[in-house]
C-alpha cells in the first residue's frame, strides 16, 4: 500500500517514490539520517563532483540497511554483516564506483565486525554510515554489541551483563582516513560530515546515534518519539576535533559528536596501484 507518487519534496528526485512511505516507525531516526545523507549527495552531484550513475549503496540486514530500498541509485540489499565485504568487491572490480555502506550497529560492528576491521585496516575506498540505536530492532529488541550495561532487552531480561563495544574507538585504532560521529538530533552535522566524506578517499566512517522509540525507547522507558529525541538531544555534545578519549558513549555523561579523525593517507586503491607500478 503506497501513496501515489507525488514528486514535490526537494529530495524526491533521489527517492524511489513508489516505495514511500518508508517502513520505518514514526519518529525513527533512520529517516532523518537518510535525508541528511541525500542532501549532501545531492549537493555533490550538483557540483559535478559525483556522477549519480557511479554511486552504489550497499546494505546488509536490519532497519538501517533497508535505507537502500528507498534510494534511486544502484543498490544492493544483501547478507547480514557482509555489506562491507560486498562493497570491497565492487570497488576493487570497478574503481570508478563510489560505495556507500549503510547499516546498523549490529550489522556493521556485530556480525560484520571482522569486515569492518579489515576494511578500516586497508583504508578501503568506501563510506560506511553506521546508524546506532543500541539494539537489534528489526528482530524485536535483542541485545546488541553496543547496548550499555544493565539495559533490559528481550534476550537480557534481567539486564545486560556485558560491556559495550565502541565502534568509533575501534575504527580510530586502524587506518581510516575519516572518522566522525553525529546524531539524528543534529541532521546538519550528518550532512556536513557526509559532504566532507564524499570529497575524500579511503575509508570514511560516520556513526550516527539514532532514536528508536518503538524498540530501544521501549527498553529504556522513552516510547514517545519527541521525548526520546529530546532526551538524546540533551546528552549530545559537539566538540571540534575530539580525541579518542572523548569517544566513550555514556548515557549519563553524554555522547560527544564531531570529527574524531580527518587525514589524507593513501587509500587502498592508491596503495594497490603503487605496488603494481613497480
Amino acid at each position, binding site marked *: 500500500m503506497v501513496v501515489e507518487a507525488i514528486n514535490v519534496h526537494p529530495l524526491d528526485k533521489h527517492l524511489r517514490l513508489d*516505495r514511500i512511505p518508508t517502513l520505518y516507525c514514526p519518529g525513527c531516526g533512520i529517516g532523518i539520517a537518510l535525508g541528511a545523507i541525500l542532501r549532501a549527495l545531492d549537493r555533490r552531484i550538483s557540483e559535478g563532483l559525483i556522477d549519480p*550513475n*557511479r554511486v*552504489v549503496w*550497499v546494505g546488509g*540486514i536490519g532497519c538501517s540497511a533497508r535505507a*537502500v*530500498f528507498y534510494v*534511486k*541509485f*544502484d*543498490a*544492493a*540489499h*544483501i*547478507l547480514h554483516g*557482509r555489506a562491507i*565485504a*560486498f*562493497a*570491497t*568487491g*565492487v570497488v*576493487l*572490480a*570497478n574503481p*570508478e*564506483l563510489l560505495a556507500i555502506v549503510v547499516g546498523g550497529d549490529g550489522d556493521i560492528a556485530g556480525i560484520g565486525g*571482522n*569486515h569492518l*576491521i*579489515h576494511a578500516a585496516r586497508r583504508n578501503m575506498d568506501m563510506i560506511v554510515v553506521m546508524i546506532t540505536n543500541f539494539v537489534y530492532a528489526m528482530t524485536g529488541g535483542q541485545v546488541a554489541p553496543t547496548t550499555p550495561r544493565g539495559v533490559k532487552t528481550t534476550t537480557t531480561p534481567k539486564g545486560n551483563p556485558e560491556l559495550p563495544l565502541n565502534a568509533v574507538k575501534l575504527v580510530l585504532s586502524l587506518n581510516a582516513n575519516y572518522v566522525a560521529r553525529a546524531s539524528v538530533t543534529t541532521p546538519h552535522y550528518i550532512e556536513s560530515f557526509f559532504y566532507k566524506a564524499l570529497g575524500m578517499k579511503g575509508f570514511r566512517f560516520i556513526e550516527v546515534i539514532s532514536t528508536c522509540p518503538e524498540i530501544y525507547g521501549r527498553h529504556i522507558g522513552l516510547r514517545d518519539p519527541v521525548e526520546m529525541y529530546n532526551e538524546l538531544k540533551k546528552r549530545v555534545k559537539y566538540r571540534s576535533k575530539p580525541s579518542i578519549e572523548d569517544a566513550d558513549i555514556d548515557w549519563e555523561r553524554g555522547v560527544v559528536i564531531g570529527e574524531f579523525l580527518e587525514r589524507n593517507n593513501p587509500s587502498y586503491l592508491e596503495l*594497490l596501484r603503487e605496488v*603494481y607500478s613497480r
Partner: protein
Amino acid sequence: MKKTFASGNIAIAEGAITAGLKFYAGYPITPSSEIMEYLAEKLPKLNGVVVQMEDEIASINAAIGASWTGVKSMTATSGPGFSLMAEAIGLAVITETPLVIVDVMRAGPSTGVPTKTSQSDVLQARWLAHGDYIVPCYAPWSVQEAYDLTLKAFNTAELLRTPVIVLSDAVIAHLWEPLTIYDQGEVDIVDRKIPRGVERALPYKPDPDLVPPMPIFGKGFKTIVESLIHDERGYYAPHEDSYRALITRLNLKILKRLNYIFDYEIYNCTSECDYMLLSYGSTARVTYIAMLELRRRGYNVCMLRLKTLWPLDRERLVSSCGARKIVVVENNTGKIYMDVDRIFKDREVYSAPVLGLELPSLREVLEVVSLWL
C-alpha cells in the same frame, strides 16, 4: 594454443584466465592456495585484481560484489572454507549472480586431513545453502579436464546467471600432467547478457530462456540487488505468487539447459555389457584401470564417468548402457550411489566406497568391486 606441463590447481587458474577472469578474492587453505598464488602473479598483468580477504565469507561476498560490476569473478577453497560460504552461495542464487566457486575437496569432516584427498563434499556442493535451488557442479578427473571444466563452469555461470561449483580434490590439485591452454579465439566463451536500454521498468523480468539480462552497476540501470524474495521490480514481495514464480524460475532456468550442463563419458560399452562401473573425479582414474583389468579377465564390464555431478540427467543416464549390475566406486561412504540407485531403479546398483586418504590402489578397487560381480 600453448602446450605446457601443469598441476590441477594451475589448470583451474588458467581455465579461469581463458574464460576472462578479472577478479579473484580468496583465503588461503590447503590444498587450494596455489590457485590464488598463481593468479596473484598472473592476473594483475592482465588488468585483473587478486585480493586475499580476511576469511572465506568475505572472499565470496567480495566476489559476488565484483560480479555485479560486470566482471567475471571466482573464489577457490576447500571443505572447511566451503562450509563457511554457504550463506553467500544462497545469495548468489537468489540475486542470480554469475560466479565460479572451486572446492578442492580434502578429507573431512571439519579440519580432517588438510593435505589428503576425499570425495565427501559431493552432496554438500548441491545442498550447501538453505532454500530451494539447483547449483551446477562439475568434477574433473585430470589436469586437462580441470582446465576445460573451469572454462565450462564460467560459461554456465554467465549463460544462466548462477553460481557454479567446480569440485576438484587434493589429488588433482597437485597432480602434474600435460595441459593444452587455448587462446580466447579458439574456444567458446560466453558473456552474460546486459540490458540494452537504461532504467528498465522491470529489471528482473526474464527473457524467454528464463534468464533476465543483468543490469550491472555503474551504467545507470538503478538496479537493486535483493536477497529477499522479490518480484520483477526487485522489490521485496512476501507473497505466494511472487515466491512461487521466483523459485520456479530459478530452478527451471537450470533444468531447461540440462542438455548443455550434464556431461559424462562412457568407456567400452557394448550391447553385451553385464556390469557397469560408475565413478567420477580422481577415483575414476583407478576405476578405469580396474575396468580394463576386469575386461582382460573376461568380464563384460564398461565404465561411466560423470563429469557433471549435479543436476543429473536421468534419461541420458538410463539410456547410456544396458548393464544389469552397476557398481558405484567413490571415495566416500556412498553418496552418488544414492542417486544412481534411485535413477537406475530397475537394475541392481551396488556401492563400492573406497574410503581413503590417497587414490586407492588397483588391488583395493578390484577387491571391492569383485564382491558384486
